[in-house]
């Protein structure tokens, strides 16, 4: 019997070959190469020194963190309100809402950058409209800045976040609302004291998905900015692809920094989430 069972392990072999070759070894390789000097192949921590001391990479980390955090915060806020509206409304409009969310959930990258250029670029339709109608906020909108980028990132965060949050609202029972109402709580109080704390674990885990999604977004930023605004994913790709010699060490160090940012964010959201699940954060 024992022998017969182990034959079945053979069926696991393709899975192992694929993941070892294209996931595990490449990722370990990146971590190892981050400790190897690009000049002489010696073992060193100098790559990390470069990452944290060179202005370009400092800027890239700052911009990436700023754009990811802001767009995730805005995304989660809009998604929360959107999912709550869907929870209260449902019906025909709710169905349309769900369909559109699903439709645009793949709308990112190059097409998104293009649509925003047509809309809000230097000669964009909205910008020209703003000039004609004298709306300064539109006329002077600068898409090619970190604020403009944040605004564009919010677009692809909304469908993702809303679709992730909507199922969580099923956990809020209508009876709770009625009970709170009977005890004299308004709707606002109900959401503040009951709804949001109950949803907090879902909100936090969605936030960390959004953050990772924005941090790693490459195509949208690349199509719009090329290299005008330093961002981590673009700097990483630049170390490996392009005219210059491949800088495995430096690119590896940048990759490790980016992965660490994601891991730290997951750790933070998990920690806060656990406090909410235990009920410690609600007083």
């Amino acid at each position: 019997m024992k022998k017969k069972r182990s034959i079945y392990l053979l069926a696991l072999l393709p899975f192992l070959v694929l993941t070892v070759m294209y996931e595990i070894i490449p990722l370990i390789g990146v971590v190892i190469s981050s400790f190897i000097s690009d000049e002489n192949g010696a073992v060193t921590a100098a790559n990390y020194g470069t990452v944290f001391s060179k202005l370009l990479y400092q800027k890239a980390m700052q911009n990436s963190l700023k754009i990811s955090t802001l767009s995730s915060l805005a995304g989660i806020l809009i998604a929360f309100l959107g999912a709550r509206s869907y929870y209260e409304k449902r019906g025909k409009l709710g169905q349309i809402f769900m369909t559109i969310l699903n439709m645009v959930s793949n709308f990112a990258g190059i097409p998104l950058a293009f649509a925003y250029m047509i809309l809000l670029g230097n000669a964009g339709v909205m910008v020209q409209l703003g000039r004609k109608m004298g709306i300064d906020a539109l006329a002077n909108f600068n898409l090619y800045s970190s604020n403009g980028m944040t605004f564009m990132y919010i677009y692809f965060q909304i469908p993702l976040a809303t679709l992730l949050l909507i199922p969580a609202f099923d956990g809020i029972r209508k009876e709770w609302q009625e009970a709170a109402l009977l005890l004299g709580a308004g709707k606002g109080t109900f959401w503040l004291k009951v709804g949001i704390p109950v949803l907090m674990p879902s909100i936090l885990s969605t936030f960390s998905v959004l953050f990772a999604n924005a941090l790693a977004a490459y195509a949208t930023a690349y199509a719009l900015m090329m290299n005008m605004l330093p961002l981590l994913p673009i700097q990483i790709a630049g170390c490996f692809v392009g005219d210059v010699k491949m800088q495995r060490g430096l690119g590896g160090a940048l990759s490790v920094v980016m992965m660490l940012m994601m891991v730290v964010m997951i750790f933070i959201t998990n920690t806060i989430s656990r406090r909410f699940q235990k009920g410690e954060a609600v007083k």
Partner: protein
Amino acid sequence: MKKRKGLSTVFIVIVLIWLLVPLLVSLIYSLFENWAGIVPKGFTLQAYASVLTDPQFGKALLDTVLICIVPILLTNVIVLLALFVVTAYFPRLEKYVQIICMVPYTVQGVILSVSILSLYVGGKGFFASRVVMLTGAYCIIILPYVYQGIRNSMRSVNMPMLLDAAQMLGCSRIEAFFKVVVPNIMSGIIVSSLLAVGIIFGDYVLIRNLAGSTVTNLQMYLYQVMKADSRKSSATFILIMLVMFLITTVVLVLKAKNDKGKKER
């Protein structure tokens, strides 16, 4: 109470407008010759004609379809085999398979592409081929979706029970798996495969970093025309979005059908 409902409606409508404006503006832009004022002028389908007759577009479309097929088939078969063996014989390994399958979800495209590139680019032969690297990368990037799709369907048909029942009736487990379980979860497999098609269609970073110029997909085509001709690129944009919407619609319809089937059972 009434007022709250009104507020929800207003909010949903605002979000819908936000999400649809970029699409509508690009659509109008692609259909008119001149849009300098408030009202666009000169309706024409010229931009679409020039995209559809462009041989580069045809090549990009063909490449996009071709590069999808192998990774999706391969990943589905590999994950099916792995999950069968793990659930039927080695339940203790399930946790590790899950971790391996979910890693790409956090690593995402940029790091995955550069790590594969840096490992294989120097070598010679089969594994240093750009197309092979890209295929491997696509297998990994769709792995979380394929894994979740197949695992959820296996759970919903209660695979261990089906296997036991088949075994009692004198059928071997592996035979039961392919003759009973796989046909039953086929619709789940199709849904997650279509999601994977959507991901590969929307990919730019993997194909740019790994394939260089050997394979061009629609996203790369759009990026190239974007620099030259904004009207032609808006037509390309609309065509890409149409393909994407078609895929999503099929997914939604199939999912709704699946759910309905489950409720009736």
